[in-house]
């Protein structure tokens, strides 16, 4: 195609926007900005570790630092794509850092040739500059020390492990708050059962009785539902229908909508040659909006209550008692709490779903919701400014943009409070269902116990079971002893089959690239969730069993 230089072209998206185009659809510009301002630390450049970094470097994490004091061995090459023959004998972190940095010129890679143990002793503040630490291949003791160190500084930690056919991931965080949780099937916020005054007066102003059937078939479905509800109110003795509707009431409304649909369609056929000519023969016949109304009964006529998850957040003491150090999230929540107390409901979301409608009707209705959402956000923003002033902080330190985003997502707020790994490791968790699950024979908790036993073995013997050919039988027995000890510590009166123990021993702590890729993919996604503060992270342990392809999440 001929390109004319004098031809004006549309503004080009920036190089960055082009490169990251496919992921911006998931977490938007502000998510990307959060990712790009993050510094992530990887402890030990194993196969799984470098795979995880790869999945952070490609989407453009700001900085990464690898802490590793090991030298590259031939064995590393079998599971680690970011090392090559020339790397053998050199520092593993440095070699992996070089090849990983090639993936994305926007990302700055660093390495530190030191052990975590040394760093924890000599320069404990080293870890404070990171937004996230990912660690693997550490002894039980080091994990505990690191976990306590990070717990104290409130820096999230992700532990990963890939051994033979078993994968493991554990997320440690003190508190994680999410505004944009991106729920899969969010219920539309239309307020039809309890309309705000502007919505009520707009809906009341529409006279659907006088409309021709063709026009009626293009009335937005929320209007139809509202009209039906007010008719019902005036004809029945119940002056108020309040949520939740009974199943019977819902079914009645649905039946009424479908009946009205047929009536309207019959009338349309009758006047087909009258005042209305539509070029699309299909639309002449259908009053699809009535069907949409019937389908929406179960979703949009739901409860008006603040969702329980959000209610819990609003009642949290961090929300009730703000301090000058309170995070933006908690200040916003407090403003929301006060708003709810005053208005009796969350701010209106302001979005209208896709529906069959004429454009006038749709745009007008959309405007009613949008205007109300803007007004609600203003009210919240005013409260936020007041709260900030009361706390002695800059009243403009939380932008209107942030308040709007928060209000739009106020029904989807999430709060996670985690547990410290050191605590889990020092006192074997009292898992209520451990006994029952293990007894059933094929629980993935079996692998949790085995991985823990492996670490215990390493603490006791300075190496993992199965790495020395001559010692396999002995290792097997020792590992079994570790398992028994752990189980008795936890007060679980069951045992784990010998075949499971043998399976772990025969891995010889070997990392299988495919399993590492799986674990790393999961963990990298969790890392992105933590860094962008979008989507809901795993709470808090995941175990992958590739022998039979099973994956389970447990809270430890």
């Amino acid at each position: 195609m001929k390109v004319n230089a004098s031809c004006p072209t549309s503004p080009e998206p920036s190089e960055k926007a082009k490169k990251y185009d496919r992921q911006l659809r998931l977490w938007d510009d502000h998510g990307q900005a959060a990712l790009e301002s993050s510094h992530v630390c990887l402890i030990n450049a194993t196969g799984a570790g470098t795979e995880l970094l790869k999945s952070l470097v490609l989407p453009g994490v700001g900085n990464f630092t690898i802490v590793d004091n090991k030298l590259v061995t031939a064995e590393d090459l079998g599971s680690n794509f970011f090392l090559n023959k020339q790397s053998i004998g050199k520092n593993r972190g440095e070699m992996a850092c070089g090849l990983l940095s090639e993936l994305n010129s926007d990302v700055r890679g660093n390495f530190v040739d030191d052990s975590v143990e040394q760093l924890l002793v000599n320069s404990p503040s080293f870890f404070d500059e990171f937004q996230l630490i990912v660690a693997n291949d550490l002894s039980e003791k080091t994990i505990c020390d690191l976990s306590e160190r990070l717990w104290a500084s409130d820096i999230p930690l992700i532990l990963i492990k890939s051994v033979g056919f078993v994968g493991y991931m554990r997320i440690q965080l003190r508190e994680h708050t999410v505004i944009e949780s991106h729920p899969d099937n969010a219920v539309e916020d239309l307020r039809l059962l309890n309309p705000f005054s502007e919505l009520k007066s707009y809906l009341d102003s529409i006279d659907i009785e006088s409309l021709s059937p063709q026009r009626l078939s293009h009335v937005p479905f929320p209007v139809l539902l509202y009209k039906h509800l007010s008719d019902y109110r005036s004809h029945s003795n119940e002056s108020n229908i309040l949520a939740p509707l009974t199943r019977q009431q819902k079914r009645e409304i649905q039946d009424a909508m479908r009946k009205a649909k047929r009536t309207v369609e019959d009338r349309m056929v009758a006047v087909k040659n009258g005042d209305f000519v539509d070029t699309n023969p299909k639309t002449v016949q259908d009053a699809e909006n009535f069907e949409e109304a019937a389908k929406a009964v179960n979703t949009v006529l739901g409860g008006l209550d603040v969702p329980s998850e959000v209610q819990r957040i609003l009642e949290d003491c961090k929300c009730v008692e703000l301090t000058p150090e309170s995070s933006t999230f908690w200040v916003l929540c407090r403003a929301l709490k006060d708003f709810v107390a005053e208005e009796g409901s969350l701010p209106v979301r302001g979005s209208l779903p896709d529906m069959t409608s004429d454009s006038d009707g749709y745009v007008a209705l959309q405007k009613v919701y949008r205007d109300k959402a803007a007004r609600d956000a203003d009210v919240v923003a005013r409260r936020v400014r007041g709260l900030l002033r009361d706390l002695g902080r800059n009243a403009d330190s939380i932008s209107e943009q942030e308040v709007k985003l928060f209000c739009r997502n106020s029904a989807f707020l999430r709060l996670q409070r985690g547990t410290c790994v050191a605590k889990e490791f020092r006192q074997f968790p009292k898992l209520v269902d451990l006994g029952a699950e293990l007894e059933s024979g094929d629980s993935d908790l079996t692998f949790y116990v085995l991985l823990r036993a492996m670490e215990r073995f390493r603490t006791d013997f300075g190496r993992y079971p199965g790495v020395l050919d001559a010692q396999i039988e002995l290792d097997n027995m020792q590992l079994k002893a570790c398992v028994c000890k752990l189980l008795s510590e936890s007060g679980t009166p069951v045992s784990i089959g010998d075949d499971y123990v043998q399976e772990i021993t025969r891995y010889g702590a070997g990392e299988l690239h495919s399993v590492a890729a799986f674990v790393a993919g999961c963990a990298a996604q969790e890392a992105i969730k933590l860094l962008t503060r979008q989507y809901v992270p795993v709470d808090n342990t995941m175990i992958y069993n590739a022998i039979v392809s099973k994956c389970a999440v447990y809270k430890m």
Partner: protein
Amino acid sequence: MPLSVCLTMWRRSLKTQLLQYDSTLAVFGTDFQNRIGNVRLFVVGSGAIGCELLKNYAMLGIGSGPGGMILVTDMDAIEKSNLNRQFLFRPWDVGKQKSSTSALVVKSMNPQIRIMSHQNRVGKDTEGIYNEYFFSRLTCVTNALDNVDARKYMDLRCVYFRKPLLESGTLGTKGNVQVILPNLTESYGSSQDPPEKSIPMCTLKNFPNAIEHTLQWARDLFEGTFTTGPQDADSYINDPEFMDRTLKLPGSQPMDILEKVKSHLVDDKPSSFEDCIAWARLFWEELFVNVIKQLLHTYPADTTTESGQPFWSGPKRLPHALSFDYDEEKCQEFVVAGANLRALNYGFKENRIAGKIIPAIATTTSLVCGLVCIELYKLVQGHKNLERFKNGFINLALPFFGFSEPIPADVHTYHDKKWTLWDKFEIREEKAPTMTAFISLFKRQHKLDVTMVSYGETMLFADFMPEDKIRERLKMSMRDLVVQVADDDIPHWKRALDFEAAAEDKDEEDADIPPIRYVLSQS
């Protein structure tokens, strides 16, 4: 499944000195490592999934043995937006071929890998290259495709040649893996996703309220303006039946089409680039100003006018049809610009989306490809037991991980014979050179009365044909029927022809029978 069964399937044999594949050796043993080396894989596509798979294969040493190889094919060149997940490519690779670039990188990471690259699209055109001989030497096909049509095509080929297929895909944080095994499972095409919900026509035309609507509108507009319009104009000139065919169309379609033809050939026919600029400017005015103004004042009315005049005059300079190509910047800009402008009309959020592009990230791909490799291990070990294999469905956003056994192939029956989509009648040409011999062979060997035989879309024989035609067809050889009646050529590489037949069983009921593979004599 009891664990002990799984354990024996991956029993470690012995541990050798430190080697590249040491961990794999520890878990699987040397015998298995040799088997992996001699695997012959066809990797279809070298995008996000392709890169990730090739890396995994390099790590495992697939195709590094004397009998092994990997062939990767992809017709696309590397683009900027690939770099956020197709990690074998660097900024300086933009514009190079995906397949050859990825093969080079993989080879440099593991020099023992025997890997070749093609720039072919899989499809009818390349059946001479990816022919029966090619497939017969493969261990397995791993799809790394980004569209359903190509997936369906490879699925058909794998079923036809009875080769295992590992199918996978991602959509944002969602991913899936499907294992397709000859004679055991259903195929990719057996279970269909529900069709995408289409947007009602009137929403598209007049009542858009989401960016998806304006996108679809822009795509339709492009199709109508730059593809079907010129095609119709071409047919109007060159195809004598075009008018008859068009006039038989229902509703306002004949008029719409003919008006477009007139616009292309008479009213808006450009003679210079300046004309094109003028047209584009007017088109813009029309789309984003006039139409909207009209819509806001009046209801859309049918603007039928009486017009039967010949449109055509002047020299026959024909516009030619463009095929829409997102890699072509101008096309992309049109849609992006069109969609965004349309969004401005209706006052909702602009977006940088350029068409039916789905979000994609490295994490999901990494994980899905890990799962593909786990299934590949099992396949290479030669397991025939369905419950050993797992299809996977994941959503990292939730997160959700679901695994299920592949669904067995549907069983069909005629007489007391059971068959599945993997089965075919195999008939050798020398045993049944003519239609007569073909039909009597069915009678003799399978107790089936053939009532109809077809090749592709063409009916070669049917018992309801006129008698003289039946007599003529019965005498003809199967080869001649294909060449003369079905008008298809039989290239030298073709080893077999595919026929379908309808037949009645012993009780004169319609029999549910598999298709027929007619093996040609090699003369």
